[in-house]
């Protein structure tokens, strides 16, 4: 019964993460089309890097607490990747290097976008399953 609510929250939360990633992708393409300069871009995006990591980390934490192992395992790789970036101090965008590394950042953003989309539908599925199981 709690599972239904949990996955509802996960669905909504990953929608939020999805919108965050869309924002990143749009900002990068603005940079390429010269609508924004790298300094402003980095200032804007750097504000959201750690919040995004923290927001994503909330989900595995909730799954850990509530014992949803599959969902937890699903999120572990991305969590590890984020933590690795923070440890190596690689997570911030550097305006002096942004044009050189832009390709890599865009790929990463697209990958995360796809991942959040996938996880949205997965949590949706889990939520429906949980609600059905509750009803019975």
């Amino acid at each position, binding site marked *: 019964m709690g599972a239904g609510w949990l996955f509802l929250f996960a669905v909504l939360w990953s929608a939020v993460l999805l919108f965050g990633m869309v924002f990143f992708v749009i900002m990068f393409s603005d940079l*390429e089309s010269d609508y924004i*300069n790298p300094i402003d871009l980095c200032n804007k995006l750097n504000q959201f890097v750690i919040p995004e990591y923290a927001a994503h980390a909330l989900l595995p934490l909730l799954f850990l607490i509530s014992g949803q192992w599959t969902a937890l395992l699903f999120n572990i790789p991305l969590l590890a990747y984020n933590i690795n970036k923070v440890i190596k101090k690689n997570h911030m965008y550097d305006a002096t290097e942004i044009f050189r590394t832009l390709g890599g950042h865009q790929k990463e953003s697209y990958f995360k976008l796809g991942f959040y989309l996938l996880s949205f539908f997965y949590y949706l599925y889990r939520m429906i399953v949980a609600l059905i199981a509750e009803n019975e």
Partner: protein
Amino acid sequence: MASPSQQLPPGWDAQWDPTNNRYIFTGELLQLHDTMGPPVAAGVPPGWATALCFPTTFPPPCQTPPICCGQTQAYYGAAEGALDPNYPPVAGLAPQPAAPNQLFTPGLAAENQFATQQTQPAPGQPQYYGHQPEPEYINAPGYGQPQPAYGQGPVDALANQFGHMQMGGSKPMLHTTNLLTDPPIPQAFTLNAIPTTSSLLAKSKVPLALVITPYRSLKEGDEPVPLITDAVIARCRRCRTYINPYVTFIDGGNRWRCCMCSMSNEVPQLFDWDQVRNQPGDRWSRAELNYAVVEFVAPTEYMVRPPQPAVYIFLIDVSHAAIQSGMVATATRALLENLDRIPDEEQRTKVAIVCYDVSLYFFSIPPGEGDASMLVVSDVDDVFLPKPNDLLINLAECRKSLENLLGRINDMFRENTIVGSAMGPALQAGFKLMNPIGGKIMVLSATLPSIGAGALKNRDDTKILGTSKESGLLQAASPFYKTFAIECSRAQVSVDMFLFSAAYTDVASLACLPHYTSGQTYYYPAFNAARAEDALKFAREFGEVLAMPIMLEAVMRVRASRGLRMSSFHGNFFVRSTDLLAMPAVPQDQSYAIEVQIEETITSPFVVLQTAVLHTTCYGERRIRVITLALPTTTSLSEVFASADEVALATLFANKAVERTLTHKLEDARDFVFQRLVDILIAYKTSMTGGGASAGLAISENMKMLPALVLGLLKNVGIRQSAQIPSDIRAYSQALLTSLPSQLLIPYIYPSFYSLHNMPPEAGSIGEKGVILPPALPLTSEKLERHGLFLIEDGQTIFLFDVLRGGKTTLPILDNPFSQRVNAVIQKIREMRRGVYYPHLYIVKEDGEQALRLWALSALIQDRSDGLPSYQMFISSLKEKVITT
């Protein structure tokens, strides 16, 4: 004139020009049959290039007809300034195997190094070899050197090309001395024939890049860049290219077709009007249609604010170490002596001086002859300016008091015992001072910054040198220098760093600041003004830097024909947008490397690359410097190889290696460069020689020095494998590798080596172009003889192997003629390299200080040293890699 085997294209003829000792080819633009009259062709003045000039190789019959005239010797010769040094390759004709010099004999190779055209013969055109009745105008000997009789009629010239790459074969010598007589051209491209498709480029494995030095220093006798003052700037509507010599006029001369995007544009009405004489003029005499490098005076649409005056702020470290080493005294004296040389024609130049140790000392300098007063700010966490005005003063008005102040600064701080440096706060203060205007900050520091923002720790650790952790020492330790650099770039502030220190100064972090603000780092390790040489070197270089007429608030953009895209940029600037480079102050003789990718198949027979630098001169005029380069395209892989320019390739590799060091590690950088060279060799082998087994290592003539240059790069202080190079020296060397222009970079990675004791009698005496230098030797200690006198120089240091005294010294001017000649040679070497650097002279004794001897011998890169391979070993390891793949 034209021999039957070398038909000039129709409409061309060749005339011998005795003054410049070469042939001049005159011809017409084929599409220009209009009322405009014949284009200006003959009698082109030496100097910045002309478009209508000088094919030195001819198109084969099957090639597409030239739209513009021929091309000058395109490759290596052009870049190095040997033949027609002033003419960058002009479009149209593909390089073709017309030159006879397939072979080269070692002795003569030296003289003809630059005269030799690359010549990758397309198989099946052997009729060009052998009997060449008039080789002269193919390789016009630039210096009156005799054309060797290559009459051997090599039938299998192809096979002969490989001969010199064998082990134990002749070691080719790279002459860099030939550069000095003519102004080096500002740009070079790694390939002088662009492949039409990216797959062809990928097959050849040769990287495509533009190496450009837009702002060259001019010595006496150099022609200045042609200036167009009448504000008629014709630009393409679509791609915004400036009109250049490679456009075609259509519609009876009323419209012009852009060479990059094929858009037809209107010719501005005033284009045919000669504003100087106020009468209808000849449009073909306009500089922008005749010269590849021109400067336009920019009208107000090109300015966001009125042109700024030149502003110089000097941040002088007055802590104990700085005073003790005599840096402050030397600096203030040098500044005093060079105040006249600071560009100040309009009397608008502003100057400020801020001293710092652990607090900041501002000087309020009143106009006229008053005494300057000192204001001390000790709060370094929140920097503020103590006075709103009088700190940044007009140089002309306050000259007298400034001179008084400079004389007194050393006395004021003579007893200073404070240890510690607040460089970060000083930078912030200097930034605040010039914030609304922009300009140049020169930091003279002798201590590691220890207080306030940007404080650095002594992270030097000799134990990790030579291990994989060493690369960490080459990264910036504090993000302050990058973020501050970005702020500076926004405000049009450029920072130069002069670093003097016997101890660790973390050059790697400090050099970030000049790197992203288009400044330069100057490092004087263990500076001590008591040594006259140190003081002299610093004073000379500082004077040159002060006198440099810098370009202010500049932005640079490279445009190219459809199908080419600039992909990455190397050099000292900040990338402001996808292809816009922001440079707050462009110094002279700094080079940038821009990698190019082929996005789509190129259909036109030639491509044009145009670099435009919009800047304000230090005299307050807004100008646009436009440098255009046109290159033929080709579908043939052999032409691609034949057109490679090894100097540009070496410069690009140096830049990429340094970039790799910062993103990955030193080992990765070395491996990367080595692997690229192997790739080129393998690609050459598989495509040119059919992939069969051959004992030798094959490469085309124009790239024969590439392995030697790459070896020199791998052994360069910045990148070499060694456990003894302090990271400061490495970081400085890397800063040089990314910013030196090719003409200074090549000697830096492949030094010149002369034997003085048996130099020919005319060397050392004044020849027709100044002092004649002795012939250069290959860089191997085989050439060192007992009791001989040898000289090695790389643009930054001069070593004199001698048996007198050892150490850093000034050569005494003794009375005997040999000594005079030696001094003349050294003087000439110091002068011939354009740029601010004044090399130290070290005298190395055979049995003297071992460290000095090892350092000097490490310049002989063809030798084995310190675990690094000799040239033969390097070639054999290349062969292994190539043959086994």
